[in-house]
């Protein structure tokens, strides 16, 4: 059964994204898609969705959504909490890395993301029409998303109503942590356009993230990377998200999900797939270092990440928030009365299976 939520507040840097738009790079259409596909999959897993269902990516502050029809389960991934204001005016806290289920009239106010990006999954996925095979938003050409743009107040987003028990919530056993350590790259395609000294510098010195960053790219600042006699311009050739291009000023630019499909600067290296999600969490001033790996090491890292995500998803638990049993009783008995449970259920850090699991689940 379909459900509808209304955007009450659009938040900041919020867009509909999925796995991205492939098959059209030959005509210049960027892939776009979630900057952190792991967290997108995590949010979807919490909400009971396939890992690549369209979600709302939150770059700064989250949206406020009101369930209009149907019961909607919201999954949150990333360091980003929320509040639910229910139809009786109660304010209920929702911790990161769990779900909140909205009944018609309930509003969820998703907070700011404290670190990088966060994802808001709606049960059944955000069902905006797919364009060129994807729901991902690419603003410059007004492709995908909500009629080619970011959501705004008043928009109605279709999703699916919760199947099964709407009084049940889900939470991760622990937050997802990306790997730490240097960002892994494969050198090339134009590592032969740099001096040996530049290659050594790139792989040993720290680079700082500047304020110049968006979904298209990330400018870094550090020791200058000198081009050799082949120079700082090439006839444009293909790039991919993660490609690190170095223009004449010698300062690297890491391309991100919305990057162009080809570029005319020499590209010293490309970040491996497994480490692309980490780039989404960098902030101006952060330092990063690069390390070169082989194709075999990159493939092993990606398989390991997929396995770790499967394990993380497998450890998601369901629980009944305290008070919910009262709510069920209330609805079941069709009573109308005032406060039947505490003003808040704080879900973060409390082991509800211990407190209420044996009794109610």
């Amino acid at each position, binding site marked *: 059964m379909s459900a509808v939520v209304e955007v009450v507040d659009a938040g900041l840097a919020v867009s509909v994204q999925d796995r991205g738009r492939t098959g059209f790079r030959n005509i210049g259409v960027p892939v776009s898609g979630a900057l952190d596909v792991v967290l997108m999959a995590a949010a979807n897993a919490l909400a009971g969705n396939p890992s690549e269902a369209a979600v709302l990516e939150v770059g700064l502050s989250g949206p406020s959504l009101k369930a209009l029809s149907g019961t909607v389960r919201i999954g949150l991934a990333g360091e980003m909490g929320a509040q639910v204001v229910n139809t009786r005016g109660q304010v209920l806290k929702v911790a990161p890395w769990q779900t909140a289920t909205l009944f018609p009239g309930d509003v969820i106010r998703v907070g700011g993301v404290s670190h990088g990006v966060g994802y808001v999954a709606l049960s059944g996925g955000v069902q905006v029409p797919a364009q060129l095979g994807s729901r991902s938003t690419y603003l410059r*050409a007004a492709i995908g998303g909500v009629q080619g743009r970011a959501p705004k107040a008043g928009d109605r987003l279709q999703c699916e109503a919760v199947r099964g028990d709407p009084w049940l919530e889900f939470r991760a056993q622990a937050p997802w942590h990306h790997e730490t350590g240097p960002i892994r790259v494969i*050198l090339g395609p134009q590592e032969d356009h740099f001096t040996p000294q530049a290659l050594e510098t790139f792989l040993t010195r720290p680079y700082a993230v500047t304020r110049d960053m968006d979904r298209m790219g990330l400018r870094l600042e550090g020791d200058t990377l000198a081009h050799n006699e082949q120079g700082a311009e090439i*006839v444009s050739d*293909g790039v991919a998200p993660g490609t690190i291009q170095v223009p004449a000023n010698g300062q690297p630019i890491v391309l991100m999900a919305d990057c162009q*499909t*080809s570029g005319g600067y020499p590209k010293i290296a490309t970040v491996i797939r497994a480490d692309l999600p980490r780039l989404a969490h960098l902030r101006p001033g952060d330092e990063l270092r690069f390390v070169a790996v082989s194709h075999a090491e990159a493939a092993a890292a990606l398989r390991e990440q997929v396995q770790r995500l499967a394990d993380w998803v497998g450890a998601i638990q369901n629980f009944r928030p305290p008070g919910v049993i009262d709510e069920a009783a209330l609805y079941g008995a069709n009573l109308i009365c005032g406060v039947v449970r505490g003003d808040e259920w704080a879900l973060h850090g409390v082991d509800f299976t211990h407190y209420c699991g044996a009794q109610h689940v």
Partner: protein
Amino acid sequence: MTTDLAHPPARLLSVGDAAWTVEFGNGIDPAIHGRVLGFSSLLDTLSNDGRLEGVVEWVPTFRSVTVHFDPLRADAMTLHDLLAELADKSGSLSAAGCCWHIPVCFDASCAPDLDEVAAAKGMGREDVVRLMTETVFTVYMLGFLPGFPYLGGLPEALDMPRLATPRKVVPSRSIAIAGRMCAAYPWQSPGGWRLLGRTPVRLFDPANARRPALLTPGDQVVWQAIDTDTYEALDQECAAGRFDLSSLLKEGEAT
């Protein structure tokens, strides 16, 4: 397709763990581009036969083809060897696309850099327009923006460097030149190319899933001068979706 045994071997370059660039040369050259088209065409055939397991898509450029793959479904080194082998035998394909005659308004209101280019080249503005409309351009690749075509064939007489300071806003559908290249901006964007005209024709339509970009690598393009009244009329037709894009096709002229 013709097989040219004399061509130098292609180079395979890493673009991370999920793409290989198959490079046929360094320059902008019809012979190199012929190999790009030949290789792309071979990939088309193999893909249609389901023989490119794990390959997601490929992007032809002036001088190379970047093959994107899913590293969970294809082993990088196995694919490397397959692509090297294919590049060796794919041969060359000459441009065999469609020929488009596309209306362009060269009025000063649409062409902010036309007078400056004419002055720099010591010719009248009508000479610039004549060169622009007499040339048969070839689409080398699409990139930079969705549907943005890089056209080769600009006469040397119009060879100008990019603007020293790029414009913050290039109006959508501007026709522009840089070096020996010509292009059309499907979208408003920043840009450093010199603007010589504007077309009312929409070069990219995401709602057209079958052919969102009007032009394809290998196509030929001839600009046809129109006056401002015609531009306005066509612009309204195009904006309303009433314009028949196939009317721009000139059959039998493609070589």
